């Protein structure tokens, strides 16, 4: 879960955003507290706090005085938008590079993607083994 070589607080923030995106953390619901995050991930509470404040700054979370941090309305869409922007850099760039190495052009790639997408959709939803 925790990766080497990347700032921890960023990973904490991302993990919360992941939960917002996949719906397990609904808008206006309470986000895990700093202490809960620290205990769960076994990290320094200050690091967890840093991740949380970053999300507050981004407007993904907001603070309700005396209660805690809550997911801001509209944050899901905002996070999705940012992620789509990063998608090309993060996933497409390496994909294209690897494809090039294997002698596959963009059209070949599109065909492969289509084929794989169809296969996934037609097959009954399987539980992917860990």
């Amino acid at each position, binding site marked *: 879960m*925790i*990766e*080497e*070589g*990347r*700032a*921890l*607080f960023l990973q904490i923030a991302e993990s919360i955003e992941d939960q917002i995106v996949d719906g397990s953390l609904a808008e206006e619901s309470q986000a895990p507290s*700093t*202490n809960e995050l*620290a*205990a769960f*991930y*076994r*990290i*320094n*509470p*200050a*690091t967890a706090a*840093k991740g949380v404040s970053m999300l507050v700054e981004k407007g993904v979370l907001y603070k309700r005085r005396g209660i805690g941090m809550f997911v801001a309305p509209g944050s899901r869409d905002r996070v999705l938008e940012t992620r789509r922007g990063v998608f090309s*850099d993060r996933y497409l*760039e*390496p994909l*294209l*590079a*690897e494809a090039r*190495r294997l002698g596959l052009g963009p059209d070949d790639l599109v065909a492969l993607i289509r084929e794989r997408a169809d296969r996934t959709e037609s097959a009954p939803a399987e539980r992917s083994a860990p």
Partner: protein
Amino acid sequence: MSVAIEVQHLTKRYRQTVAVDDVSFSIEKDTIYGLLGRNGAGKTTVMSMLTAQNFATSGQIRVFGEHPYENARVLQRMCFVRESQKYPDDALPRHAFGTARLFFPNWDQALADRLVDEFQLPMKKTIKKLSRGQLSAVGVIIGLASRAEITFFDEPYLGLDAVARQIFYDRLIEDYSEHPRTIILSSHLIDEVANLLERVLVIDGGRIVLDERTDDIRDRAANIVGESRAVDAFVAGREVIHRESLGRVSSVTVLGTLSAEDHRQLSAAGLDVTPVSLQQLIVRTTQHAAESAPATTGEPADIDEGALR
């Protein structure tokens, strides 16, 4: 943020060897520090001097603005149980905890009792008959339950099995969350504790070689792996701190955070980037520093930093 400990030009000389060499740093309040380094690097000597158990040859130490020597007011706010701590001959664990309770104003007996249970510490055996792990548990319990404003943990997990170590880390995080204080964790095992540390102080050959926030250095190095010529082409002009080769494949550790452009170049060149753990970063940086610097005074690796007689 206010400063709990201030150290200026601290030096400790033992006849021929220099155990601590012109060390300066400050420790901020309510932060978890890692005091990292190899065995014999000077960690225990530094901690001994900060708690007035050992004496500096030169330099200044200020704890809460005062010098700790013979200063009960300051000493009772610190807790340092060393890795090779000696206990009174007939002492049972409850005697050690009972005494700690007398001297540490914030002592929490409920926490101590809970930890005794979790570590399964045998309370009927004298401390000198305990196993290495149980002895460490005694030290850990005193350190945690003392709730001292500055707590040192000196290689606290020696002899503790994996389960006990997790208990320690978990209780440490939990108690620190509820009762923030300054914690200094000395360790030669970096990766296990890396995620607990907010700041790291790396000491090597008696000198401070790194004094940074953990988050700042986590991405400071990267491993570039791939076909040797391509790797060399990419790392040209960058600071290389480690190099390994197997046949035509090389793995090179470079210092410096990689930009998005760098990542693009790497993908294009068919090179892989693998992350460098905090331990690898520190080990390779200190090795690199040792290789580039000329050999100085003899390694104080065989000095028994703690007990002398």
